[in-house]
């Protein structure tokens, strides 16, 4: 029974969501919007569980002396931001927005900017011309890189054209082949879940 009820719910809602996509009737739209609202409510409850688990985990680690500073900062952030929002509001000059603009946003930008260095190191590894295919990749990347800068157009007008051709044909063909595979994989996975063949999400069966 513990497996059957979720399977029936999944089947019914899977078929409803599938059928409503092909309808523009107000009832179908209403059902769709209602289900989305239910989803938001479920998410809100699980967010509560997630935050509780986060607090519990951090407190446990602090009591065990395992990375207590990181855990304390995490907990402080979690507690302080809502307090600032409740006490001072979320206006432009509020302490909440000050913390958001001067602490959270720069920290996020810092992590994002790491990407530039990681792209450089990953490109270096990927473009090392050790094999024929790696050499082709390196040459193609060089052409595309050169074709995207104004200087290349001054050297030869063929660079931007070649870049456009590489991106529109060989590169796009490969991407579309992968996308077709992903699309079909997603579709059959969804069908397996709706038909009850795939049950891993249900107690790992």
């Amino acid at each position: 029974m513990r497996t059957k009820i979720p399977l029936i719910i999944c089947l019914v809602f899977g078929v409803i969501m599938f059928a409503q996509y092909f309808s523009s009737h107000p009832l179908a739209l209403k059902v769709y919007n209602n289900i989305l609202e239910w989803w938001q409510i479920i998410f809100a409850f699980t967010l509560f569980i997630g935050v509780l688990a986060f607090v519990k985990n951090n407190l446990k680690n602090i009591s065990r002396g395992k990375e207590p500073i990181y855990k304390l900062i995490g907990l402080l952030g979690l507690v302080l931001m809502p307090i600032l929002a409740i006490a001072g509001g979320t206006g432009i000059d509020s302490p909440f927005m000050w913390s958001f603009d001067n602490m959270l946003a720069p920290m996020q930008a810092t992590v994002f900017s790491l990407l530039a260095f990681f792209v450089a190191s990953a490109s270096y590894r990927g473009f090392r011309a050790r094999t024929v295919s790696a050499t082709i990749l390196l040459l193609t990347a060089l052409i595309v890189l050169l074709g995207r800068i104004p200087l290349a157009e001054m050297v030869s007008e063929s660079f931007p054209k070649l870049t456009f051709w590489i991106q529109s044909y060989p590169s796009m063909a490969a991407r579309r082949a992968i996308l077709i595979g992903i699309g079909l994989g997603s579709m059959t996975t969804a069908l397996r879940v709706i038909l009850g063949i795939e049950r891993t999400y249900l107690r790992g069966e």
Partner: protein
Amino acid sequence: MRSFWRISIFFLGLIAAANPVYASNGDEKTGAWLNFDTVTTLIFSIISLLIVLYAIWSVKSGRKFKIRDIPGLKAVDEAVGRATEMGSPILYTPGWGGDIQRPTTIASMNILSSVAAKTAEYDTRLIYPTHDPVIMAVAQEVVREAAIRAGHADRFRADDVFYISSSQFGYAAAVDGIISREKPASIFLLGTFEAESLILAETGNAIGSIQIAGTDSTIQLAFFIVACDYTLIGEELFAASGYLSRNESILSSVKAQDIIKIMIALFIVVAMIWATIDPSSKWWVF
């Protein structure tokens, strides 16, 4: 299966019965039970569904399907074995981009189940940080059940499957920190990844972990290919469930996927030849 057909026929019947509302008032699109703009998708979906059902029926009548070797999935044992030998944990994360209703996340859960069963068997620690509380709840259940299935329920550590933050770079920074401090021997990056993919993969690469990755984003796949040891490309991620469990019904749906792919390829070839011969033709455009 029977109930599926009953419900499907009921809905299709409902649509067909109510559709004269649209037919009698042809220029009024909104309010129709059947939206004719989506008919092509409906036909393709029904054909795909029939092919999947045919493949499942074939298996039930005794036909065997074989699936080619997928290096990324073959390496799962190697990754778990390496972590066990080194006495280091395994890190498994589904990325920031997905939620539980996404097929990629479901596919990732299938692989997690196999990995969790193996880690429970070898008593290796499995760390699962996530950005979504729903994924956390499902993953906890999957890991717990996998440990029970492996006969080691006591080796399930609920604290190791945890929620971090719904903020993209908050999540990336936290997982990066865990990788740097815990130094996992093996890292599984399987799910929906966005800009955080390379940040995580490069950090894992820097500490010398064996990395198995797979995602549904073609942009992030390129990053995974250069930074990870094994990458599941395209449909490989979705075939993992059947490949790892050897469940015949799941394998048959993977086979159905191949049949549909061949049909699409044939359609593309025919349309290409047709368009070359008659450039003004448009029947193949949907």
